[in-house]
Each structure stands twice: as structure tokens, then as C-alpha cells.
């Protein structure tokens, strides 16, 4: 028994225990198996797997043969290299802290055991996803995490919006997986195997090959890379499949933190980085990745500035940051992308959990009904600010180092779209701190604007402006929630210090560690330029914070005026560019209409059933008419006999 096998299988065991015993036996202690399992995985990762990976040891072993059919042969097997090690650190660290936090957050919930069972199942699938040594296992984990996401988004399933959101996430992801699946088929047809090692070793051999795909002659590496990327677009909520992630906020907040910020949504970035030997072969594919990432990043950042739901703002922010990671991958700076994945996991999980702490206290998601919370929730406030500074890319914090590396990589890369995406990334650097601090100022500063929905049911939706009723009920969250917050805050500040670039006196250890897997892009740029790019994005980030302060602390009536002045743009942003509506009217409705009005009503009921019931009907009618001949009246038969005899005689006479 290999020790590393415990990493995924401990959470699986916890899942089985919770499903079987959680409801009747464990009940409010259902968190114990899940927490022990994930913390166990964390310790194995830190004490055994990470040191081995740092020593340069790569594990690539098969556990058993999963499926054999002819030459098709895949195993359940594990690959642990530096990239996997980084992902394991991210997943087990965040999962451990979020599991502990959830004990406080989910306390007293009806489905307590169910929540922890799903969380363990998710952790298992996510670990299988990052540890697999072949595309099949990747796909297994990929669909598995999607399933758990479906369960957990729809956790409050008696609520229609939650059930809808879960279903939407699943189906939108299926669109991405459609391409991903075909990409996997293409890999098998091209390389004859689905295992990473032989595929990547032979990848260079397909350079320049073309293949006939549905009538078009296309470049083989481009085709495979773009098909795989479809899956990443779905899973990592990139444009145009980003629509499921904001709705996914219907799930409990720890779920948003773990699945929809720190781990699952980053699987797309992980996959692209893992498949870098294929992506590197195609400039078109690389540029597509970069452009899609940059576009998503900018697009969702602009939406975030107008939203009022605390979790949705952070969700759009997640889309935006994931876009930056793809931007990095697209210009060949995979290490920078993974570095941002790693720092993002800490500050974004922290943002979500801190938001959860707020929601736990005020029982609403609407920031227009909050305000002035900092005196009641000092710890939450402090960690929220730390997370925001890190997310906003303020120098010294984790997020700064990774974001700066991405922006510098884009600027300095050989990529033909490098300068373009650099500009877009720099623009994002303004929006990110702006909407994050808008959120902070509206939530924690100023005066409390909400009632207390549980005490005053009638004052639900912002109807009680300025009301101080119920305000004294607001209090800081329990220790089981604040301690994970503080630990994550440490990560949000310091996790990035492992990747300080040489120009700031660091050793860029992170990029060096990943170099054997993802290589290192060649940059062309002077030190002066590097300072300039860094300085520019820093100034822009700080000005974003400044503008947020000006709007939401000083001139608090100004945002509303601007929204009125530019109501056209404001409405487009507020309604998220009407993408949901677009899909509803161009895809969902027509499909249902065709199903109901064409296929059921016409093709099946009229045409096919018409023939099926028509043929026996016609036969029946014919025999019915024929039956009329048999009247049972002797004189009829006599006449017919006479007519027949006459006919025969006439015939004989004529023919003679």
C-alpha cells in the first residue's frame, strides 16, 4: 500500500461512512469523518508527497486496469510531479480549512451529514482529477467534481432557484465536456493511448499534420488543443460558458469557497497546463486561450462593478481571475498561471468565507442592506480587507506577485497577441480592486441599512432604510469560523512569497519548481520595462481602490447619479450583458419548442403514428367494404352469380 493512495481514498472512505451512518448514527458529529480524512490527506501531502516532489522524484504508477477493449486500454493510475504536488497543496489546504469553517457555518442544518458527505466526495473526485496519469481518469474526476458541484449548488433543493442553478451548472458544463470528450477521442485515434506520458512524449511528432474533421482539413494539434480547451471553458466558467458560475452561488458559502473558487473551477487551468506539450504546438490554440482568458477577465470584471449580491460579485471576480490564469497559459507562461491559481485559492477562498461570515450574521446577500459592519465583526473585516488587497494586487500581498508575473509575461512574451492581452490585463487590474473595495465600503463602512429579516419578517428587501432595529443582533462569527479565516489570511498575505521574482530580490522558486513540467517561456524585455509594467499596474490598482473610496466613502450619492446618467451602459452591465436571456431565447426555448410542437405533435403523432395507425386502418376499411359483399341475402348472390356467368360467357364469346 502506497502512502499517497490515502490522499484520495481517505475522503472517499469518509464519504461512504457519512452516507451509511451519517443520518442515523453520526448526526451532528457527521463532520468528524470528513474533517479527519481531509486533514489526513493534507498531512500526507505536506510531509510525504511535497518533499518527494521537491527532491525531484516523479511517481507514475498504475493501480489497476480500468477498461480494455481491443487496443484501447486505460488504467486507474497516479502521476505525482511538481504540478500535481502544487495542486495537492492547494486542494488539501483549502479543503481542510473550509471543512472546519463549515462546522460553524452549517451548524444546525437539517442535511448536515449530507453536506459533509458531498464535501468528502468532492474532495475525492478533485484529488483523482489532479492525481490521474491519463485522460480517462482526468475525465472521471472532471465529471465527478461537476456532479458534486451539482449536488452542492442544489443543496437547498426545496428552493426552485437552487435546484435550477444546480441543473444549469451541470448542463452548461456538458456543453464544454462535449468538446472535451471529442478531444479525448481524437487523442486516442492519434496516439493510440490515453496515458499522459506516451501522449506528451510523442506530441511533437504530430506537428504540422492535418486531419479531415467533418469535411474540413484542419491542423491536428490545433484541433486537439481547441477541443480540450472547450472543456476548460465550461469547467472554469470562461466566456461564453461563464453563465453557470454566478448562479452557482445558490449553494452554501463553504461550497462556493471550495468548489467555485479554490479548486474545481481551476481544473480547466490545471488541464491546459498539464497538456502544455499539445497546446505549445499550435499558435492558434494558444492565442485562443489567451484571448478567451483576457476577454473573460475584462468582461466579468465590468459586470462585477454593478452587482449587489455579495457572493455574485465575488463569483464574477473568480471568473475574472480564472481568465487571467488562461491569459498566462495562452502566452506560454504556464507557471505564472498556476502560480496565480495557487495564490488565488487562498485569497478567493478567504473572500468567500469572510462573505459567508457576513451572511451568517446579517442573513442577507444584498450589500445594499448591509453597511457599518466593521464595528461588530472586526476579525471578518480585517481578513476581508487583507483578501481584497491581495486580490487587488497591492504590492507585498500574494496576489500581487502572481498577477504581476502574468502581466509581465504577457508583455514580454513572443506571443503575437501578447501586447493586446497585456493591455486587457492591465485594465482588469483597475476593475478588480475597484469592485472589491466597493464591496467592502458598502458592507463594512457607513451606516447599517438593513433590518433583521428573522426578527422583522416584513422588512425583507431594503424597505427599512436606516433602520437600526435588529442591528444589535449582529455579532462576530464563532471561533470555528474565524480561525480558518485567520489562517487563510496568512496564506493570502504570504503564500505568494515563494514566487517573488528576481527583480524584487526573490528566487522565483515557484516557477523553478514547475519548470520540469511546464517549461519556462522566453521573455524579451529589459529590467526597465519590467519595472515600468509593474509600476503601471500597481498605480492602476491603487487608483482603483482610491476611486472606490471616493465613490463609496466620500461622495456616496455619486454612484447612483452616474448610474442614472449612463443608464444604458449601467443596465447592460447590471443585466450581465443579457447573456442568460440570449441563451434562453436562442437555445433553451427553441429546443423545447421543437420537442413539443414539432417532434411530439407532428413527426411522432401525425407522421409516424399516422402511418402506423393508418395502414391497419386502411386495411380495415378495405375489408370492411369487402364484407358488405357478404350480405347473406340469397337474391344478391343470385344476381352476382348471374352477372358473373354473363361476364364469363361474354368474355368467351369475345375472345373467340
Amino acid at each position: 500500500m502506497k502512502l499517497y493512495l490515502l490522499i484520495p481514498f481517505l475522503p472517499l472512505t469518509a464519504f461512504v461512512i457519512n452516507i451509511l451512518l451519517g443520518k442515523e448514527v453520526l448526526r451532528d458529529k457527521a463532520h468528524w469523518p470528513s474533517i479527519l480524512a481531509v486533514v489526513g490527506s493534507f498531512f500526507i501531502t505536506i510531509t510525504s508527497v511535497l518533499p518527494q516532489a521537491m527532491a525531484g522524484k516523479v511517481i507514475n504508477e498504475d493501480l489497476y486496469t480500468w477498461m480494455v477493449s481491443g487496443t484501447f486500454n486505460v488504467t486507474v493510475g497516479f502521476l505525482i510531479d511538481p504540478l500535481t504536488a502544487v495542486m495537492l497543496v492547494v486542494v488539501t489546504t483549502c479543503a481542510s480549512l473550509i471543512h472546519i469553517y463549515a462546522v460553524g457555518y452549517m451548524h444546525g442544518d437539517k442535511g448536515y451529514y449530507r453536506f459533509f458527505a458531498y464535501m468528502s466526495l468532492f474532495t475525492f473526485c478533485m484529488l483523482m482529477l489532479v492525481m490521474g496519469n491519463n485522460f480517462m481518469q482526468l475525465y472521471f474526476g472532471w465529471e465527478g467534481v461537476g456532479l458534486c458541484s451539482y449536488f452542492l449548488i442544489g443543496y437547498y433543493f426545496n428552493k426552485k432557484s437552487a435546484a435550477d442553478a444546480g441543473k444549469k451548472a451541470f448542463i452548461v458544463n456538458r456543453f464544454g465536456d462535449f468538446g472535451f470528450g471529442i478531444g479525448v477521442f481524437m487523442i486516442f485515434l492519434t496516439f493510440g493511448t490515453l496515458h499522459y506520458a506516451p501522449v506528451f512524449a510523442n506530441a511533437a511528432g504530430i506537428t504540422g499534420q492535418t486531419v479531415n474533421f467533418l469535411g474540413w482539413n484542419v491542423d491536428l494539434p490545433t484541433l486537439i488543443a481547441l477541443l480540450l480547451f472547450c472543456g476548460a471553458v465550461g469547467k472554469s466558467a470562461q466566456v461564453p460558458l461563464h453563465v453557470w458560475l454566478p448562479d452557482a452561488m445558490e449553494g452554501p458559502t463553504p461550497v462556493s469557497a471550495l468548489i467555485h473558487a479554490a479548486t474545481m473551477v481551476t481544473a480547466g487551468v490545471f488541464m491546459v497546463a498539464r497538456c502544455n506539450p499539445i497546446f505549445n504546438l499550435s499558435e492558434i490554440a494558444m492565442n485562443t486561450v489567451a484571448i478567451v482568458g483576457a476577454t473573460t477577465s475584462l468582461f466579468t470584471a465590468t459586470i462585477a462593478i454593478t452587482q449587489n449580491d455579495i457572493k455574485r460579485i465575488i463569483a464574477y471576480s473568480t471568473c475574472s481571475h480564472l481568465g487571467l490564469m488562461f491569459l498566462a497559459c495562452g502566452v506560454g507562461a504556464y507557471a505564472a498561471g498556476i502560480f496565480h491559481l495557487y495564490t488565488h485559492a487562498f485569497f478567493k477562498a478567504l473572500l468567500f468565507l469572510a462573505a459567508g461570515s457576513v451572511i451568517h450574521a446579517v442573513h442577507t446577500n444584498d450589500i445594499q442592506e448591509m453597511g457599518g459592519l466593521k464595528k461588530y465583526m472586526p476579525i471578518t473585516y480585517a481578513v476581508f480587507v487583507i483578501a481584497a488587497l491581495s486580490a487587488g494586487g497591492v504590492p507585498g500581498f500574494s496576489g500581487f506577485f502572481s498577477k504581476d508575473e502574468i502581466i509581465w509575461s504577457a508583455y514580454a512574451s513572443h506571443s503575437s497577441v501578447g501586447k493586446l492581452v497585456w493591455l486587457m490585463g492591465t485594465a482588469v487590474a483597475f476593475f478588480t480592486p475597484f469592485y472589491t473595495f466597493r464591496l467592502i465600503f458598502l458592507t463594512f463602512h457607513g451606516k447599517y441599512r438593513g433590518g433583521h429579516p428573522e426578527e422583522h419578517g416584513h422588512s425583507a428587501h431594503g424597505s427599512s432604510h436606516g433602520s437600526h432595529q435588529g442591528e444589535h443582533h449582529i455579532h462576530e462569527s464563532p471561533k470555528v469560523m474565524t480561525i480558518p479565516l485567520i489562517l487563510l489570511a496568512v496564506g493570502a498575505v504570504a503564500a505568494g512569497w515563494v514566487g517573488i521574482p528576481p527583480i524584487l530580490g526573490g528566487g522565483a522558486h515557484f516557477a523553478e519548481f514547475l519548470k520540469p513540467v511546464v517549461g519556462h517561456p522566453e521573455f524579451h524585455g529589459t529590467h526597465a520595462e519590467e519595472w515600468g509594467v509593474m509600476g503601471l499596474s500597481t498605480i492602476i490598482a491603487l487608483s482603483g481602490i482610491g476611486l472606490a473610496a471616493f465613490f463609496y466613502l466620500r461622495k456616496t450619492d455619486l454612484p447612483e447619479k452616474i448610474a442614472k446618467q449612463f443608464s444604458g451602459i449601467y443596465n447592460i452591465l447590471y443585466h450581465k450583458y443579457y447573456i442568460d436571456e440570449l441563451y434562453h431565447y436562442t437555445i433553451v426555448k427553441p429546443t423545447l419548442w421543437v420537442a413539443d410542437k414539432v417532434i411530439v405533435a407532428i413527426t411522432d403523432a401525425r407522421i409516424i403514428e399516422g402511418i402506423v395507425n393508418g395502414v391497419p386502418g386502411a386495411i380495415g376499411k378495405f375489408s370492411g367494404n369487402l364484407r358488405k359483399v357478404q350480405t347473406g341475402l340469397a337474391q344478391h348472390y343470385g344476381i352476382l352469380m348471374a352477372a358473373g356467368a354473363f361476364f364469363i360467357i361474354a368474355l368467351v364469346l369475345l375472345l373467340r
Partner: protein
Amino acid sequence: MEQVIMNQLSYPILSTVIFLPVLGALLILITRRSWELLTKWIALGTSILTFIVSLTLFTDFDKSTHKMQFVEKHSWIPNWNINYYLGVDGISILFVLLSALTAILCVLISWNSIKAKVKEFYISILLTTSFMIGVFCSLDFFLFYLFWEAMLIPMFLIIGVWGGPNRIYAAIKFFLYTLVGSVLMLVGIIVLYLYAGKSFDILELMTKNYPYTMQLWLFWAFFAAFAVKVPMWPVHTWLPDAHTEAPTAGSVILAAILIKMGAYGFLRFSLPLFPEASKAMTPAMLTLSVIAIIYGAVICLAQTDLKRLIAYSSVSHMGFVTLGIFALNIQGLEGGILQMLNHGVVTGALFLSVGIVYDRTHSRQIADYGGLATVMPIYAAFFMVFTLASVGLPGTNGFIGEFLILLGGFAANKLAGVLACTGIIIGAGYMLWLYQKIFFMEINKKIIGLPDMDIRETITLVPLIVLVLWIGIYPNSFLSFMHASVQHLLERVNAGGVQEVNIAKTILEVVR
């Protein structure tokens, strides 16, 4: 003498498996009508015994050979050269086991829900089981056709006597539809019999080569019988009616076994007997399969009746099966066979599950449910596993089958593979929509206070859950049965094909 492995066991195992249920039926026949409990126990006992005996097939099967095994051969009507000839290979063996298992589940699920004509019901169930197993074991065309048609009679009765309000229409439609197809096959069988010098011996017929035009005609004659049974688009419309009106056990038998016989027919007869015609007809077959996949899935989106939705989903899923079969490569064929098994397990399970709530509410309308996960949580968990298997989630059996089929289909024809993949998206759409409407959201007041599954119902579903996960996690226990037989089948199909391709090439060259 053909290359077969005679039965080495001390008893004729296949005959035992076929005729044990008949014995049970006879026992029930002489039981007093008022002793309903005894009737049920006899039915349960015989079906369990049949399954236990059939397990020997599973353990003693030699996976290394494509040859027919456990063969029994006795002269029956020597004047016409008709033999009582039984045997199984890697293609048929799993369906014998599945049929035996299904019988147990059908008896269990009907325990309380069948209240009228109890004796006749269980006799019908047992006879259907016997005939279905007979179909899978027959190596003589005459015997095969006998079982094939005999099976219709108890099935017709199950639908027509114990079915829903519109049962007579459904039963007659089912009967006529399948009969019309079968009659054409009968003509085909007689043509083969005469051409081959009066032989009904299936294995012997397979070794012969038939002229191309004859193959083509016979292919379509057999196609008529098999396509109706599968059912392929556009001869699928008997299925929703039959499924919907049949009692739960009837739907389960239909879904799990009966509609597999069409696909089995393609594998056992069409491909090896008419290899050139099969290859030539591949484009048509792939097209029909893809249409079935998408059409069946889209039509599910507009259903309001629970059983009808699952029935139409069968059309889509069986489209995957025929796609795999006519991909004519090893992944497609093995995926197709495995998917037949999977579909039997999953759709059978879904119909059993629907039966469980139907017994409580007597409603098949999706709108009459909602929030059931709160009322019947254990049931909701079981249903979820089957839903996921139906959607083809990795870790469940549905994934393995669909993946291999799509891989094979994609290798054979990229467009067919890509279009079939869209069926998976829609599949997730309607199954999750169904699950949401029934189990999630606010509790419908019609279902408040329903009891969760009892032990009998749980026992009925547990074997199927085990199969869903077993095949999903370790499919090789089942795939390994098929390798040798499928390889042999492919060799047979391809051996004739080389010549055909060359002819086509020569014609092309002449034309140019």
C-alpha cells in the same frame, strides 16, 4: 461437426435454466387459486433457483475462446433437419444471466401491486423468462423462431390484462408491430434454409458465403424484425405505448430484455450471416442510430408522463447500441454489447423505481410530484444513482458503455460520433429536469406522508445498484467475456469485406 464445446457438466445446464421457470409455472398451475402467497413464493423460488443455476455459466465460462459453450444438441424433427440445439458464447451469455436476474426482480416488484389473476400473472412472468432465455441460447433457427414468437404471447397478456387504462390498444399495437417484423424474418429464415441445403443450423449457415444481392434482401428482411424490437427510429412508436401501459414488471421485462433481442439479432445473425450487406448498409444504419439518439432525447424534453419519458429515453439509448454495433470495430461492438447490459440494468431499475412510487400514488404524471427527496430520502438516493448511470457519469456503468460506443463510432465515422455526443448533452437535460421536478423544489401536497421504501423494495433495487457500480468501476469482469467472441465476429465480417472493397475499387477505376 462445428467447432463447439459440448456441455461438460453432469446436467444439461442450458436446458435447466430454460425449463426451470416452465416447471415453476406448471407448479403454480396446480396450486389452488386462493393460495396467493404460495403462488408468489413458488414464482420467487423458481426464479431465484434459475438465477443460481445460471451463475454456473458465469463462473465456468471459458473466456479464452469464441466457440459456443455448454452446447446441447439432440435431433428433434429429423425429416426437416431440425435439432434441439443450444449453446452460449461471449455475446449471449450475459443476457442469459440478466434475464434470470430480471425475473427475480419482476416477481419481487409485483408482490403487492398485482391483485387480480395472481396465478396467471406469475405464470406469464415465468414463461416469458423461459422463452427469453431460450432465444439467447438457441443455435437452431427453427428453435430460435419458436422462442422468439412464443415470447410474444405471455408478454401480450401481461400488457393486455394487467396494464393501465389504454392497455388493449397498447397490447395489440405491440403484438402487430413485432409480428409484422418477425414474419419478414421468417421468410428470410426459409430462404436461408433452402439455399443452404435444408439446414437450420445457425453455426453452419454462418460458415457459408451468400451472393451479395441475396445478402442484401435477407439483411433487410431480418432488419425488419430486429429494428422493430430494438426499436430503431422510425419504428419505435409501439414502445412508449407498451411501456406506459404495461404493469411495472412488464415494463421492466420489455426494457431490460425484450428490446435487447433486436440488437442481439443484429449481432448474432445480421453481421455474421450477411457481412458484405452489413458493411454496405453501415451508413444507413449509422444514420438511423444517430437520428434515434437525438430524436429520442429531444422528445423526452416534452414528456409529462414519467414512464413515457423513460420509454423514449430507451429509444435514445438503444440508438447508442446500434451505433456501436454498426461502427464495426471492437470498441463499438463491445461498447454496444455492454450498453445493452447497462441499459437493461439502468432502465430496468428506473422502471422498477417508478413502479415503487406508482404503487403509492397511482399517478404517472410528473406534475403530481415534487419535493419527494424530503419525503422519501432513501428512494431519492437510489433514483439518483440510476439517473446518473442513465446520464453516463463516470464511475457508473453507463459511462463505460457510452464511452466505448462513442469512441468506436467516432473512429468509424467522425460526424456520427460528434452528433451522437449531442445526445449526451440532451440526455443530461431531460434526466436532471425529471429528477428536479420529482424530487426537488417544494413538496407537492399529493405526496405528503408517503412511506419510504420498505425492505422488499430495497432488496429489489440493491442488486442493480451493485451492477451499476461494479460495471462502472471494474468493467473488465464483463468486457472480458466478450473479447474472443467479438474478435471472431469482426474477423468474419472483415474476411468477406476485403473482396467487396476491391470490387468497388475496380468498378471505380473502370469508370474513371
